[in-house]
């Protein structure tokens, strides 16, 4: 069963300078018990996607069409505020990027962990016991007294582990991890990823892991979705996409990964140009203005093409490059 199935999702924002098409025909699946990485540069619509799933779009944002099917039954775009609020936390939970700001500074860790269990119907002591159990699971030292402490008394890495404990405490079906390791240093990053991996296996949830760190995605995820300017440009298993990238953007992104540089260079490669102004989307391929393989066919609207079962790319070169890929 698929935990989350997003299909044809379109999100628009009304701005002072006119409507902005933030997400265009976004389609991807998060199968049960799998970790799906979402990768893309800043401004590619990752945050909008999270907010659309959580039902927390800003007031000027609107889902025009498309559906977000959760656990095969409820379409999240059609739920009432109240129904959506009931899903957030127990069924779909989130770990945010900034561990420093994600916890309330004036409430004790215990109160925050107890408050999010407000629907469980258990006694306060039972909720506290559950919180302690989770803190032990994420290896917070002295978990019992940690409940009475405040966020500023923990280090950044510990705060992020507390945030992870909070998000998995109710054993959700889907965990959305929004760049959970970006604010941490490299050693903590590895430890946090391993922790997430362990807990995911224990709880058996699906994870939507947002990151711009390709190495982390390759390490942690089974599937990957590459986003550019609010569109899914390529998706498939990590193996397929990373070893056989079909969209020019994916290829450029992989070339720019510092970990893939084989020679010493003074200047790391970048993709020249900028993400287009989403108030004026180009008619054809959204990546065309920056694409090195651009040709007249790119001026027409692009649809997603299947490369292989489970591997799709939104580029009209796909069929011929598939053929060339074999001979090269």
């Amino acid at each position, binding site marked *: 069963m698929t935990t989350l199935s997003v299909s044809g999702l379109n999100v628009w924002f009304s701005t002072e300078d006119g409507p902005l098409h933030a997400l265009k025909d976004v389609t991807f699946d998060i199968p049960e018990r799998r970790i799906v990485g979402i990768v893309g540069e800043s401004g590619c619509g990752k945050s909008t996607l999270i907010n659309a799933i*959580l039902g*927390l779009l800003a007031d000027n944002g609107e889902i025009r069409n498309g559906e977000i099917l959760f656990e095969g039954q409820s379409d999240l775009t059609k739920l009432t505020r109240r129904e959506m*609020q*009931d*899903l*957030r*936390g*127990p069924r779909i*939970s*989130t770990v*945010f990027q*900034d561990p420093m*700001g*994600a*916890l*309330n*500074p*004036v*409430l*004790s860790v215990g109160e925050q962990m107890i*408050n*999010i269990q*407000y*629907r469980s119907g258990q006694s306060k002591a039972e909720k506290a016991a559950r919180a302690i159990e989770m803190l032990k699971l994420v290896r917070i030292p002295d978990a019992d007294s940690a409940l009475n402490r*405040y966020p*500023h*008394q923990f280090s950044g890495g510990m705060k992020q582990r507390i*945030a992870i404990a*909070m*998000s998995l405490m109710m054993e959700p079906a889907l965990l959305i991890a929004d760049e959970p390791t970006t604010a941490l240093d490299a050693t903590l990053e590895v430890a946090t990823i391993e922790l997430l991996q362990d807990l995911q296996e224990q709880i058996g949830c699906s994870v939507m892991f947002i990151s711009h760190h390709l190495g982390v995605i390759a390490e942690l995820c089974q599937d990957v979705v590459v986003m550019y300017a609010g569109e899914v440009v390529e998706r498939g298993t990590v193996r397929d996409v990373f070893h056989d990238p079909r969209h020019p953007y994916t290829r450029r992104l992989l070339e720019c990964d510092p970990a893939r540089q084989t020679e010493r260079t003074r200047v790391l490669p970048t993709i020249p140009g900028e993400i287009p102004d989403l108030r004026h989307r180009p008619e054809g391929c959204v990546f065309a203005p920056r694409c090195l393989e651009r040709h007249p066919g790119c001026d027409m609207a692009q649809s997603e093409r299947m490369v292989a079962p489970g591997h799709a790319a939104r580029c009209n070169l796909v069929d011929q490059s598939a053929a060339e890929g074999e001979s090269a």
Partner: protein
Amino acid sequence: MLNYAVKRLGLAVAIVSVAMFLLFCMIYLVPGDPASVALGPRATDAMKEALRVKMGLDQPIWVQFWNFFSGAWTGDLGQEVLSGRPVLDVVLEQLPFTLALIAGGITWSVAIGIPLGCWAAINRGSFADRLVGILSVAVIAVPSFVIAIYALLIFSVSLRWLPAIGAGEPGHLGDQIVHLILPSLAVGLGWVGYIARMVRASMLEVLEASHIRTARAFGLPENMITYRYALTIAILPTITLLGVGIGQMLSSAVFAEIVFARPGVGKLVYDAILTRNFPVVTGAVLVTTVIFVLLNLVADLIVGALDPRVRSSF
């Protein structure tokens, strides 16, 4: 928390000492001889000299300062010129009336200002929000004595709902509270505006914070987010502001006490200035300073109690 309180108390003692020093300098620098002012133009030189010795004005300045300083810390603020009663007794007799007035003013400003600011922030950009904004500026702009006079004219003279003068029958709490309504409104109404604006601004800031997004992402009820997660933080600058604002309320209390003919420290100082009763003036100012510093201390302790980050930074 205890550690924090002790340190804050030490700071308060230091502030009062500095205030005493400044007060002493001011008295010393005021032109004219206090003894001749007190005794009037027809006093003989011998009488003036006798009073000067009695008041300790013949001593060198540092002895005078020490006497004033040590006297003040032990509660001896000198004697009233005419009756010879200890100044401290005279001031403390009037103090409860003023404290009640300030407490009333704070009650008005907090009870109306905080919900109003919160409501405006939640309904940001709505008609109600704009109305609150305009009314806040309006009540801030009107001086307290104008509010006092209009309140008196409307509610006491025209409508006859509330008493116009006095502080109520001694020992009769209900009557005293009824007498407190209009004067405290005059003292606190401007602060309703300040607090509403302050709470609105800090609520808007806090509601944007990422921990509020986290709280929403966990599906917490909107009421819990507003009051427990956001207001607890948004209220902190307001409490600090109110601590400082008590100084301003003490000065509006002077007007309110005169307009409503209420007893109180403000009225006492006003009368003492008119009769050149300088020991009472200095005594009352010093007591007011101590009250101000203490209430500021209370405000800081409340902030410390609510904000663990402040607590551990001391």
